[in-house]
């Protein structure tokens, strides 16, 4: 029972207006860009995004006004690429709520979803205005200290973030969804457990069972995965370890687009690649898909 589907179908079936989404990767590395561009094409709206450190993924959705709230520790390009201007301007204009977290409180809030509890205690978030300004942080007393007659002890809680959908771009998976992430995994294992539904987009999709000889490298067992989408270059212009580096040219082309037309042209320029589907890249022979 293959879980394969095309990019268009996957976005149609799994992304609804108002959903809380979460994406693989970190900054300009291994974000599921093809899937996100398809969200733009299908104009899904009022989306929320939770991610430790976002960049082009969130900035693109903000550029098209599709985001209502971002829960993140960091939203920016790195060094030479500068700030995420669409995100920045949307927050400044008040059209996007920028819920600032420490990256770790995003992790803790997602752990809350993994464990299905409404909050997670966080050591370390002790001082400052983030605690004052945000209602998703709360400071309580440790009830065990109280019960044991010990000195009062404050504990910060972060409210759980429960993503409706995690979209993870990986190097390889099989048709059942068994997925291998090569190199840095960032928070991808966590989000594969935290989200209600999981879609894997992959550089290579192999027939079910073909990963058995690398099974101790499988990071996400297939039964957690709801759909598999085969998209070579699906992270580009972000990097994908072992496959390609970030494309400076294409990132700059996005950053320098200064009107809707140029932004649309940027998204359109990927359309054929993003939607090329179901062309099973496995051609037989062990190692052919490595």
């Amino acid at each position, binding site marked *: 029972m293959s879980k394969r589907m095309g990019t268009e179908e996957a976005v149609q079936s799994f992304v609804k207006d108002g959903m809380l989404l979460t994406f693989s990767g970190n900054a300009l590395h291994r974000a599921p860009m093809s899937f996100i561009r398809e969200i733009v094409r299908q104009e899904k709206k009022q989306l929320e995004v939770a991610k430790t450190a976002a960049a082009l993924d969130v900035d693109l959705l903000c550029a098209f006004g599709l985001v209502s709230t971002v829960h993140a*520790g960091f*939203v920016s390009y790195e060094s*030479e690429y500068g700030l995420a201007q669409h995100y920045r301007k949307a927050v400044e204009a008040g059209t996007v709520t920028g819920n*600032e977290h420490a990256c770790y409180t995003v992790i803790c809030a997602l752990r809350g979803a993994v464990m299905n509890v409404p909050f997670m205690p966080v050591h370390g978030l002790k001082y400052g*205005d*983030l605690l004052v300004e945000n209602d998703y942080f709360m400071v309580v007393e440790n009830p065990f200290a109280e019960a044991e007659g010990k000195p009062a002890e404050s504990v910060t809680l972060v409210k759980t973030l429960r993503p409706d959908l995690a979209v993870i771009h990986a190097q390889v998976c099989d048709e059942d969804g068994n997925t291998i992430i090569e190199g840095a*995994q960032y928070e991808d294992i966590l989000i594969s457990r935290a989200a209600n539904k999981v879609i894997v987009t992959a550089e290579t999709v192999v027939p079910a069972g073909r990963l058995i000889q690398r099974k101790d490298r499988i990071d996400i067992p297939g039964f957690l995965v709801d759909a598999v989408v085969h998209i070579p270059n699906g992270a580009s212009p972000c990097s994908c370890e072992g496959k390609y580096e*970030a494309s400076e040219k294409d990132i700059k082309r996005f950053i320098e687009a200064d009107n809707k037309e140029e932004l649309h042209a940027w998204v359109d320029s990927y359309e054929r690649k993003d939607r090329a589907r179901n062309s099973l890249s496995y051609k037989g022979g062990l190692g052919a898909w490595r």
Partner: protein
Amino acid sequence: MAMINGGRVPGNREWETGDLMTCVIARLLKDKETVFHGVSSHMPMVAMQLAKALHAPDLVHLNIPGGVNPDSLRDVSYSSAGPELVRRGESYFSLADIFDLSMRGKLDVAFLGGVQFDAKGNVNASAIGPYKKPKVRLPGGAGSAVLIPTAKKAIIWRTKHDKRTFVEDVDFVTTRGNLWKIVTPLCVFGYKNGRVVLDAIHPNITFEQVQEATGFALKNENILVTEAPTKEELALLRRIDLKNLRSVEFK
């Protein structure tokens, strides 16, 4: 000031400000310490490799992608959080693991950024103007808000030293805590009794220049002069950091 904040420092031809700052940072690191840097952190990343090559062979280099002790920065380009750090690493220790480590009091040094810093050691990486309706929305503090309070020593480095960066009071307190040093193109700040103080001034810089570029009052007491990069340091730097990543923020 442009010269000092950027390229070659008046009075020497051997090194640039980026070299000096990298050496200063490397000297702050001790052997066997666990040390973390985040995104956009090329200078600390190079400094950690320099420290390992010099006096801290068993320093543990931790980073966002999770590569423990990458053996070289050869593959690194624009990013200090790229997968090449895992490719070059000796083992894997995820970002979540690193945060947990710091929560347990076992992260010795964290390198963190920010946009505004004030005399009380508050850090702002969040917003200029009101948080909910900001004049400028900043990228966010990333790990700072939990790492500055929990790492044993938080080191901040800034390649800009001006009155917009070092202010009397920050617009928004993203965090404060175990701030230990701030390294700038002009000086090294320390943090004592809840106040940012001037520890050392770089070669060829005067107290007046530092005070002029700083938005809060400094005391001209017990101030050291930073030692210029040594020949050995410079030679190692060139070998470790072929692409001059350490100065990427000056470009």
